[in-house]
């Protein structure tokens, strides 16, 4: 059982508080910097601008450094770090569960390509859309509302269908 710095009794109360504080900080930083994951790749491929791309690469590096350092301090909070070495060619839970490695690769490729296309055409990844909503963009507000509807649509109708299809072919 994974154990972090806060006991389970305290952690279940702390979850919304810690995450909303983190979110406010990220929202502030995202507004100041114009941080955008998909925008980073777009600017690099279109204009060879590396400002935003450096931010996204720094996010991967920062996550690795953070996980490594805190794993050294409290290994019980990072049971499967470094995932590829502990768990092999499987995804960290979060995608639809119980599929073969090939099925996860198919999901990752389809999902990745689709969100890359949508992100470029609508001018930003979901973080950027949230920040633009808070800067007053009604279009981005509709994007965020669309995400909320998409969540229910995926959970109710698409998730089970995709799992059934992938179990049939992969």
């Amino acid at each position: 059982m994974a154990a972090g710095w806060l006991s389970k009794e305290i952690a279940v109360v702390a979850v919304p508080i810690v995450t909303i504080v983190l979110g406010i900080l990220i929202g502030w930083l995202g507004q100041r910097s114009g941080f955008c994951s998909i925008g980073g790749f777009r600017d690099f491929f279109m204009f060879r601008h590396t400002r935003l791309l450096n931010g996204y690469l720094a996010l991967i590096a920062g996550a690795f450094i953070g996980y490594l350092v805190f794993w050294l301090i409290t290994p019980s909070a990072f049971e499967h770090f470094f995932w590829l070495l502990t768990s092999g060619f499987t995804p960290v839970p979060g995608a639809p569960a119980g599929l073969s490695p090939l099925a996860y690769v198919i999901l990752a490729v389809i999902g990745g390509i689709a969100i890359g296309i949508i992100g470029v055409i609508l001018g930003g990844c979901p973080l950027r859309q949230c920040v633009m909503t808070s800067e007053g963009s009604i279009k981005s507000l509709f994007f965020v509302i669309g995400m909320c509807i998409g969540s229910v649509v995926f959970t109710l109708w698409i998730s089970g269908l995709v799992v059934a299809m992938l179990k049939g072919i992969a």
Partner: protein
Amino acid sequence: MDNENKPSGIDSLARNPLVVGLLIGILAALVQVLLISAGGPEAYGFCVACHTRDVVNIGVNALTGMKLAAAPISQNAVLPVMTVVGVLIGAFISAKTYDEFRAKTGSALSYLWYLLGGLFFMVFALFMGGCPYRIALRVGYGDAIAFIGLLGIIAGVLVGIRIATTIAEREV
């Protein structure tokens, strides 16, 4: 813009994506070491798609009595992960503070496109188990499938640029 008149060291750091990216990554790891006892999954400190899914699905469950899926950490806690609510608040405070809040409207058709765009973005992000942010965290955590997903995103961006330039050229 009167920001030039009052340069602040902290703001110049906050405007540097490199600093912001590093900080978000480290904070996502800190959130895990703090909260993981409440429940998994791992590498879940920050994700716009999944955290929105948790808030929406648990909210819908509370209103309708359905049992839509959410991450264990959000189901076990008194309230789900509120990161995205925080992002909306934080960006609003920042935009107001620096006088960068501008109400921008669009056409009804553009609203429909953004609504559908957000809907499909969410669906395909949940296909791969995360938006580009959780994908970055998972890559940092050592998840090879997430790395393949990242390559997919890059391919999608290249296709998206092609589509966007074709549309732009047709309109000229």
